[in-house]
């Protein structure tokens, strides 16, 4: 009885309260509540793009900050990501219909010999939420998969991920092959993964090492803006 009384009725919140509540619900990984709130905002006439950016992406940005600061850990981030995914699942077809700004196209994948994709999936989701088109190559990618996809998709950005000390050097193999083929400077190359660091990113010839998904989004935006300024 008292539980029922304590239950928050999302539909009774005004828009700004509801968006703040969505940030909280994302933080707590409450996927069903996120789905419900997305439907409420759609019913109230919000555009899918506004829901995505103001409620979901902003909520995940807060999650990202607390992960970086050691307040949240991987399980909580995964639950939050699961909740965001549920919201995005509703919004994705609507975004196609209503249109949303496209910031660029990214080919992303985990390198050869590595099957870890949690970080890569988070980056892909956050990049997609920020307005990038994502071509996700999945795990265990040899150099030719990356290069074929970059050319085929006319992508702007290559994102490579690795969790293992033993697989991270493969990123250099990919970049060296791009240099050999004379296509290195045609793409922005971003790298990430737990054992990587900025020095490594520089040493292998990437454009940037991205510590987490939020940094990846900001870095990609920055490089795309520079690219447009050059054009």
């Amino acid at each position: 009885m008292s539980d029922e009384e304590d239950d928050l009725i999302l539909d009774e919140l005004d828009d700004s309260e509801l968006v703040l509540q969505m940030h909280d619900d994302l933080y707590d990984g409450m996927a069903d509540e996120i789905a419900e709130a997305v439907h409420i905002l759609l019913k109230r006439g919000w555009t899918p793009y506004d829901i995505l950016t103001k409620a979901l992406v902003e909520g995940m940005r807060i999650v990202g900050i607390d992960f970086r600061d050691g307040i949240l850990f991987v399980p909580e981030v995964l639950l939050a990501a699961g909740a965001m995914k549920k919201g995005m699942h509703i919004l994705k077809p609507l975004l196609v219909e209503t249109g949303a700004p496209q910031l660029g196209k990214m080919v992303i994948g985990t390198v050869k010999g590595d099957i870890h994709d949690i970080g890569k999936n988070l980056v892909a989701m956050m990049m997609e939420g920020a307005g990038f088109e994502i071509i996700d190559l999945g795990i265990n990618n040899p150099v030719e998969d990356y290069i074929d996809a970059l050319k085929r998709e006319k992508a702007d950005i290559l994102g490579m991920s690795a969790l293992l000390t033993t697989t991270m050097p493969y990123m250099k193999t990919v970049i060296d092959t791009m240099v050999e083929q004379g296509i290195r400077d045609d793409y922005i190359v971003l790298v990430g993964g737990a054992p990587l660091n900025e020095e490594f990113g520089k040493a292998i010839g990437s454009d940037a090492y991205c510590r987490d998904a939020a940094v990846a989004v900001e870095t990609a935006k920055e490089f795309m803006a520079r690219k447009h300024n050059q054009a």
Partner: protein
Amino acid sequence: MQTLIIACGALAREVLALIKLNNWQHMELQCLPADLHLRPEKIPDSVEAAVGAARGKYERIFVAYADCGTGGLLAARCEKLGVEMISGPHCYSFFEGNEGFAARGEVTSFYLTDFLARQFEAFVWKPMGLDKHPELRDMYFGNYEKLVYLAQTEDEALTKAAQSAAKRLGLVFERRFTGYGDLRKALDQA
């Protein structure tokens, strides 16, 4: 004067067993918390602090860590400090033998050692949040195919524990007896 072995807490039993087996009376063991295994970015600073505190008290200091997810940073730090460490990417590799491990080129195996079989709950299941959210299991382990238990000792109870861990993770179980592998060689030269 003695040799100090600064080791990952996950290697404590194995290092002590080797010291006893080989009667290495010149060796002393100091362990850093095994849970650094979960936060490898903290390993280089923790090792440096331990080396700094032990300087001058021992003839030699040896770091019983492999790279352990530090992306080369631990090796760089040890070089700066003038101390040696175990070669190889991690304990799974040096227990099996670095060459043999690399030659297998296994991509879809998740490894347990005696320590991790014994401490599966505390070092795998709980830190990954699987005690509260078992639904996350396939996000973590969906791309793995088998759990390989690299056994340092013949211990039926540990084998059963590792087998049960494989079942909980939804992975095929395989046991390989490795003994102490390259750890013995590394300490022998320390």
